[in-house]
């Protein structure tokens, strides 16, 4: 294999599998809210000739929506995709940091449900350990 030319892009370069998928997502206060399971882009229409001048851009990260489809194929119903808009992303490093609190994303509903119905009802559940 001859040495191929190296393509240089301005800005941070991200390979989806390497840098984004399965990374931990932290909210504004560094609280984990999920992992990236998928990425939504616009600008690709299946079957149409693509426009070289307007590359697709990331619109949403999809969190915790079906580890099973990723393991076995298929996809979860569109209504169950927990989306986080790209505009909420503050930094992409060893974790993906958001600029908003976790409660503003629907991916945290199960956390809130368990909290409200189970954990907070057990005595001491709302107190810090001593």
């Amino acid at each position: 294999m001859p040495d191929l030319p190296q393509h240089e892009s301005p800005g941070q370069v991200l390979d989806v599998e390497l840098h984004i998928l399965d990374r931990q997502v932290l909210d504004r206060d560094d609280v984990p809210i999920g992992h990236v399971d998928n990425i939504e882009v616009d600008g690709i229409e299946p079957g149409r000739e693509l426009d070289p001048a307007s590359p697709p851009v990331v619109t949403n990260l999809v969190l915790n929506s079906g580890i099973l489809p990723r393991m076995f194929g298929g996809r979860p119903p569109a209504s169950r995709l927990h989306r986080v808009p790209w505009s909420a992303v503050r930094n992409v490093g060893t974790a993906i940091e958001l600029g908003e609190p976790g409660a503003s994303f629907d991916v945290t509903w199960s956390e809130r449900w368990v909290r409200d119905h189970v954990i907070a009802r057990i005595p001491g559940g709302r107190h810090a350990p001593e």
Partner: protein
Amino acid sequence: MKKYFAVALGILTAIGGFVDIGDLVTNAVVGSRFGMSLAWVVVVGVVGICLFAQMSGRVAAISGRATFEIIRERLGPRAGAANLGASVLITVMTLTAEVGGVALALQLASGVQPLLWIPLAAFAVWLVIWRVKFSVMENVAGLLGLALVVFGVSLFLLGPDWGDLKTQALQQTSHPRETPLTYWYYAIALFGAAMTPYEVFFFSSGGVEEKWTEEDLVTSRANVLVGFPLGGLLSLCIAGCAATVLLPRGIDVDALSQTVFPVAMGAGQLGLAVVILGVVAATFGAALETGLSAGYALAQFNGWSWGKFRRPAEAARFHLTMIICLVVAVLVLLTGVDPILVTEYSVVFSAIALPLTYLPILVVANDPQYVGEHVNGRLMNAVSTVYLALILVAAIAAIPLMILTKAGA
């Protein structure tokens, strides 16, 4: 001064926290059947856990990412989920064994049936996880676990033929009553007992819990590099006691009472009281660690909020996971299954799950994005790669050996 105190405390808790029901039982079984001829495996296992615990701690301190986040990130959904399934299964098995161990030890102290102690012990574990601060929990359990040093004292009081023990350790001759297959089966069990995967989950998550930074690396390295080998030495003393008292009498260990008996013989009733206290502390401490590890693993894999530094309500699914795991452990124990048997299986299954945990740790400990300038050195990488190969061989050989030897019968 405060810094030296922190280092000393860390080392002491590392020693006390190193030995759990798996180490206790496996070392006693091996000592009673093979003498010191498998001592080399303990050494190999301790070096291995030092390597990988240290790496996972370094990754956690610098990047803030605990081990199961790394596993998910580097292995992807399929292999990651396979590892999650295996790790949670083994960790809950170990948790079951530890809770059972607490109950057995309390039975030895009180004469009251273990079935009555099991729910109590599990509830106490939950209460500590629920209410006690991480550092307090770790230090108290670790320091009380130091009572197990009485194994070393008893070994001296028993006055064994040291030359004989040394010969056994150096010649690796298996006892005439044993076959090479059982010898290697127990080699894998000992290896698995020393390198149980929950230890790295707990160690790295503990680093995040205690908010380690780059400056804490020296302390954490000292804890591991001094504490774990001393814990390994303690394991060897357990084996040595069994080799001195039980091996010549043809007694194979299959109960906790036999494990601690040599201490009674060497140090009398006082020694017995101390060793039982040590066993309760060590198994209780390990029950906390395994319970938390199951929660860490599941929460980190799914990206849930986790950690004892948060209020339970701020890590709701994490706490719910641990409650469920404890309930499962109690239900399993209430069927009357022998905790010692659960222990013996859990250490061998540990050996099987090791490669998928240690591969991502090794890879990420070389990645500057995660550890900055603190990437592995050449020697570290060479030794770790050899270990990865070793772990792979042990994992592949474990199941066939288990079937061929009827689980070491």
